[in-house]
């Protein structure tokens, strides 16, 4: 029968031994563990979408695919446009054929499996287009669930993916409430809109903002009070997608209707 003293000694040794592998991973400063509340970065990118102006031409999607080398024919895209048609019977019809890469050229709504719904003009109560892209959330759930630190948030708020480190587990894809992430068909790692990081860090605008001829898409710096985008967000009525998830998305919408998913 083991004596109490020996038992205590051995238990402590055992726990200590098991704690060793855990402490070995303690490579970071406890101070840094807490997200820095006093955010002193000079830039925080935000996006503004005006759904009243969007005509559903899809030039943004085409430009994005070209600029970011997403395979043109692949059925994935960093940004897309959704069409909402509310008919008189109260039903909402939503589609996004090929992510609106080729625009919307027919009133027939794509309901999948090669089927379409014919909608007559006189039955339409409400119809509008909603462009969507990565919200570069302030509390990105996708970053939280990455097991290896392949996706992360830069100091200016953009969430990026390290193509050389991603293991392709798909947890980030499942973790995004907005469905903006996907697996890149060529690189076989996680992929998503990154606000054309290579353009905005050079003083340019994102490809989709440049391609939009109607001013439905705009990008700005929320830290700059003189930025026209910032002015609109601060003074006019704007909304965000799926606020209830607590992700703090940074893409703001003008004219976001209740039907938008």
């Amino acid at each position: 029968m083991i004596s109490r003293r020996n038992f205590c000694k051995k238990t402590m040794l055992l726990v200590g031994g098991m704690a060793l592998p855990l402490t070995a991973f303690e490579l970071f400063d406890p101070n840094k563990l807490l997200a820095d509340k006093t955010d002193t970065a000079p830039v925080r990118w935000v996006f503004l979408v005006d759904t009243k102006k969007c005509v559903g031409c899809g030039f943004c999607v085409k430009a994005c695919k070209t600029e970011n080398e997403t395979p043109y024919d692949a059925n994935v895209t960093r940004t897309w446009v959704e069409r909402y048609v509310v008919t008189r019977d109260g039903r909402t019809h939503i589609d996004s054929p090929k992510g609106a890469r080729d625009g919307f050229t027919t009133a027939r709504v794509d309901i999948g499996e090669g089927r379409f719904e014919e909608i007559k003009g006189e039955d339409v109560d409400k119809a509008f287009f909603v462009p969507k892209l990565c919200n570069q959330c302030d509390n990105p759930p996708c970053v939280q669930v990455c097991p290896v630190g392949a996706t992360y948030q830069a100091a200016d708020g953009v969430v990026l993916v390290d193509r050389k480190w991603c293991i392709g587990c798909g947890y980030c894809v499942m973790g995004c409430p907005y469905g903006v992430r996907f697996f890149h068909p060529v690189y076989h790692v996680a992929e998503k809109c990154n606000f054309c990081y290579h353009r905005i860090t050079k003083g340019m605008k994102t490809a989709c903002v440049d391609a939009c001829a109607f001013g439905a898409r705009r990008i700005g710096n929320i830290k700059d009070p003189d930025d026209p985008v910032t002015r609109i967000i601060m003074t006019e009525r704007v909304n965000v997608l799926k606020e209830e998830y607590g992700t703090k998305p940074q893409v703001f919408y003008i004219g976001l209707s209740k039907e938008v998913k």
Partner: protein
Amino acid sequence: MKNHVWRPLYVALAIVLLILTARLFLVPKDFGVWERGYMYSWHRKGNEADWRAVKVKYKTTVYCKECHAREFNAINNSPHANIMCENCHGPALGHPEDPPTLTIDRHRDLCARCHALLPYKAGGRADIRGIRIDEHHPEAECVLCHWPHNPRQKGGA
């Protein structure tokens, strides 16, 4: 310790040591906790520079304007003023060195993006003059009769 009971623990510790040693070689030196803390910024810092270095494809209209002032002025005084040149002509990339010429997309589908008539009463689309693409000269290219740089001008290019 004399007690043989600890032998497996030594093996376990050896394995852990092995993993920690492997870490030294396999983990990039700039991998760590950065600006947004461990939860949101655990990454290889060098990757940010990798993304910044991606090649820019679309140069935007200000670039085209430098050499193609005539076309720019024409389109700038037309309802098509806000359409980026590269939307129809493709990305400038290294133009004029590479590619020396850009394509001119004359296909109907390009114009149909905005001008296919959709029965929606409000919003930006309703303000665009549209045609029924299956009925309005489906056999012809739009540019045969319409000049995209100045659509108000009658009779094509």
